[in-house]
């Protein structure tokens, strides 16, 4: 029962996140197809070939997904990483059980220029 339950929960979490990255990343990067570098555990989020291209090297990517140290713009998954790493342009995490989406304007503008108006409300 537990063995069945855990993958289902994980899967449900991934489905929500998948929708988010599919909508959010092209808007952030201003590209129709985004080159993403991430850890293998997040590969299923980027299996849509019409939107994402998974790259093997961090430096080849348009955006790094996850709390990964890289010189390219990073979309983090925790507030701590978001607030400490200079290359983080935004993050998605849960606070008090509520999903939080934040975009660090200073870093973002450094990499991508202006932010899409629909994302202004998440900017810091």
């Amino acid at each position: 029962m537990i063995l069945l339950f855990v993958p289902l929960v994980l899967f449900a979490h991934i489905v929500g996140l998948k929708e988010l990255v599919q909508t959010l990343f092209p808007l952030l990067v201003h590209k129709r197809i985004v080159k993403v570098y991430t850890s293998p555990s997040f590969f299923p989020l980027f299996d849509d070939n019409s939107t994402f291209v998974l790259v093997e090297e961090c430096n080849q990517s348009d955006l790094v997904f996850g709390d990964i140290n890289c010189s390219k713009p990073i979309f983090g998954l925790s507030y701590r990483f978001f607030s400490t790493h200079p290359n983080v342009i935004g993050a998605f995490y849960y606070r008090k059980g509520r999903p939080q989406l934040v975009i660090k304007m200073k870093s973002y503008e450094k990499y991508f220029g202006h932010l899409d108006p629909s994302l202004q409300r998440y900017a810091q």
Partner: protein
Amino acid sequence: MNRIKFQYIFFAFAIFLGATIFLLYHNFLETEKYIQKLILQEDLRELRQTTDNIKRHLLRIIPPHIDFYTYLQTHPDVYKDIQKDLELFIIDKYKFIYLLEPVDKDRFRFLVDTSRNDRASFGELYTPLEPQEYHTLSPHYFFHKELKNIWLTYINPVVEHGKIKALIVIDFSLEQAHLIEKSLKTLENFLSGLILFLSGLIAIMVLFAYFDYKRERKMVQAYEKLEKLNKELEHRVEEKIKELRKKDAIILNQSKLAAMGEMINMIAHQWRQPLNAISVSAINMQIEANMGLSNPQSIEENAKMIQQQAQLMSRVIDDFMDYARPEKKKERFDVKEMVEEVLKMIEPQLKNHNISIVLDLAHDLYIESYKKDLEHVLLNLLSNARDALDECGKEPKKIIIKAYKEKDRIKIEVKDNGCGIPKHIQERIFEPYFTTKEQGKGTGLGLYMSRKIVREKLKGDLFFESFDTGTTFIIEL
């Protein structure tokens, strides 16, 4: 009828039981709602008190007219103290206790967060799912429907001059309330099941009672019908008995007449000899007178003879009168003597028919019974034996009369050496008006009346054994 009344009581009881169960269930549901409401009220009261305490504490520490964010930013020691103080309030029920400050319409920032896990940093921006709920000037709570109601968020604002300075927020766990609710739900389910089961049971019982009532109604109707039929039958039986009694009276009368005829016949036989003797004496007297031979001595002898014969005839009359007299009381008598008395009446007639009598009568065979009735039966059996022997035509004709005791019962047998009773009529010989004799000779009532007398008055039995070699009638007393 009592059973039908019982069913009415049963129906009433079933309705009463059903109503009681319904009221019980309704009362339980109301109580369940009340308990849930009470628990929530209690929790809210507790949350209000806790947040009010925190509010008082904050207002004591932080000076007025300074916003919390600026003050805590410039006084890290105060920030730490507040955080430690708020940590004291943490219990299992309070999942998160934190202070927020509104930034804009949708966003807030953390001032203090006491959460053990998932602790936010000072000034961290925060976007709740329901931001509109946080813009309140008075204590407020809401459930997290999107989080399946596992939390209740309680907000108590710290307001100064109509402006929210901070929001004391507690994410209150509803786990305990859910546990109670779950227990109540289990109890409710059990009660529902029980009610369903009892309702089914009552329904079955009512159905059973209804069918039983219908069956009982049918039975009562059938019983009434049967009772009516029984009354009709009783009436018909009474009518039939009356008719039979009338018939019996006629038969008895006819039997008496037949017996009388038989008696006259016997008397005639008995009288024939003395009448002859009287006639002879009278003729002698006439001849002697005509011839001038009469003398006083011969007249006297003839007169004596006539007198003797007349006395004999008179005795015969007495005997038959005695026989014919109705008997009301039992008497103790010797069976042998009784048989001999009967023979005295019928023997001349039997001799006239060349029938010899053999007697095998036990001595001192006494019985207490109706003597005349027994004589009547015996006489009838002897008459029948006589007629049977005449009809059969076998020679020599013989009647054996036996009387003996067997296992406390006295038996009197009348056995003839005739041709026996044909098998096809053996079953009918005791029926009234059944006779094999030629018309005018037999009434068919002799054996019928004899058995009736033996069975009903003498409390015995009359039966027969018949073979080709003759018939034996047995009176058992």
